[in-house]
């Protein structure tokens, strides 16, 4: 019975963590500019992340190691500094985007500029980590995160043509604006395959003391949780495709995106859009801050854990504190949250080989996984998706920077 409850909770947690500002913005842009055509990118990213999350759970349950700790052990400290720095920098930018997204949600409701809210939001995120426990954060954010289901409701009420939507599930070449098309595809992949998701998941598996008996639960949670997250991303794309595209609205500002819920749901749509945005971003901000602290603490061997007091783990607690400060600063100085989001998602895609390559090697290492090493399917899906994301990123990011 307890396992069943844990499964349900795990799925809910995954959903709460999956849909955040990156997924929302990239899916909305895709829908507003290319209709259903980029649905395949969301599905591909979703498939890859299902494999990655399952792998990270399996890795922690069998090897009893967290990913950063194992990476340093296996590759040595000097090599470890490369993924450490890359993940650190990209995660900080993503954290800034999440905090910025939450501030923008409040700007929707109050009309007061997002910059003003940077410090209160940063403080909220910090307080939740400083005073909260892992269980409370995980469960609280996940339950609240269910508000993002409103995107599915909105999409449903717009009556998307299912044949048209299915056509978008297969990759097709764009009829216009090819550079933009592939750049958004890259951003979608970067938003879906966020390393913080499974670094966080692996730490959770260790904190919950998973073992071999949890492998089936792990597969279930990974598959269902991430699938539901992808489903919601597709719902955002559908909403944008059916509301924004016909009106020729290219999302230059966040309030334009809110229309996708206001058309099907009226005045409530606006409120729910702001609420969903706020909760999704706060949840992601908590996870990314913790992930930065986890990677540092686990890489350097410090005590870590959300259930401990800050004074028992000064270095860990101060790590996420400094991370949140940095993220808040990014928003405070006025960087456009929309641009920051899109940029950090594309950068994530670019950094995937460094962030995931070592992990993939570990997943095939007998010393850590004995008989539970990766099968050909896991390896193939992940390698191909990451290779594709990287190549596309290298080509499209410079074009996008030059174009804007």
């Amino acid at each position, binding site marked *: 019975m307890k396992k069943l409850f844990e499964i349900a909770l795990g799925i809910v947690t995954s959903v709460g963590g999956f849909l955040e500002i990156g997924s929302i913005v990239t899916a909305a842009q895709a829908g507003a500019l290319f209709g259903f055509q980029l649905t395949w990118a969301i599905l591909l990213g979703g498939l890859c992340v299902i494999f990655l999350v399952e792998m990270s759970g399996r890795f922690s349950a069998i090897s009893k190691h967290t990913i950063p700790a194992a990476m340093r052990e296996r590759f040595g*400290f000097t090599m470890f500094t490369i993924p450490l720095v890359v993940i650190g920098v990209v995660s900080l930018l993503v954290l800034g985007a999440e905090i910025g997204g939450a501030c923008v949600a409040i700007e929707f409701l109050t009309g007061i500029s997002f910059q003003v809210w940077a410090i209160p939001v940063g403080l909220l995120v910090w307080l939740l980590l*400083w005073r909260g426990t892992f269980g409370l954060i995980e469960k609280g954010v996940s339950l609240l995160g269910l508000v993002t289901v409103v995107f599915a409701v909105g999409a449903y009420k717009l009556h998307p043509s299912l044949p048209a939507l299915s056509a978008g599930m297969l990759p097709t070449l764009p009829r216009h604006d090819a550079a933009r098309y592939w750049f958004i595809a890259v951003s979608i992949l970067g938003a879906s395959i966020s390393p913080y998701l499974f670094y966080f998941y692996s730490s959770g598996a260790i904190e919950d003391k998973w073992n071999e008996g949890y492998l089936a639960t792990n597969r279930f949670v990974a598959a269902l949780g991430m699938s539901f997250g992808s489903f919601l991303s597709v719902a955002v794309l559908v909403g944008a495709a059916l509301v924004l595209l016909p009106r020729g609205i290219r999302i230059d500002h966040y309030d334009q995106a809110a229309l996708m819920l206001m058309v099907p749901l009226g005045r409530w749509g606006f409120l729910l859009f702001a609420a969903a945005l706020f909760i999704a971003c706060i949840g992601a901000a908590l996870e990314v801050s913790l992930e930065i602290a986890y990677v540092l603490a686990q890489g350097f*061997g410090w*005590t870590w854990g959300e259930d*401990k*007091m800050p004074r028992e783990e*000064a270095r860990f607690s101060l790590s996420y504190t400094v991370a949140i400060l940095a993220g808040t600063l990014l928003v405070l100085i006025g960087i456009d949250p929309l641009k920051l989001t899109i940029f950090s998602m594309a950068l994530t895609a670019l950094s995937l080989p460094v962030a995931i390559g070592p992990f993939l090697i570990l997943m095939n290492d007998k010393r850590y996984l004995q008989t539970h090493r990766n099968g050909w399917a896991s390896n193939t899906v992940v390698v191909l998706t990451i290779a594709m994301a990287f190549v596309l990123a290298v080509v499209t990011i410079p074009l996008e920077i030059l174009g804007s």
Partner: protein
Amino acid sequence: MNLARDLLDKQLVDRNGRKAGKVDGIVLKIQEGRPRIAYLEVGWPVLARRLGKRPARWSDGLLRHWNGGIRTRLPWERIESVGRDIHLDIDSEKSTLLTVERWLRRQIVRRMPGGNHGKK
């Protein structure tokens, strides 16, 4: 024992089960003509040396300023077991392993709201 594979960069756990950093360096000595482990080294100056000459010089200077240049060394005799983690027969709270942790705890965490508290 393969030193790099089984010792280096592994997690240290003290006698109370507390995490106490990682094995950042290994110092060998020659005894009766054969190499033996003298002690394990832990700490950021040791890591800096692994990164290169300039980081090493920079961190050596910082270390001298911080505590006069004392490095954290764990005699091999104090190692209880080597497995998934390296278990020590030392109380890390009373050793130099947690100097930075204790300093941060006193100077920063204690002064923050809720830093000194009982339960979470």
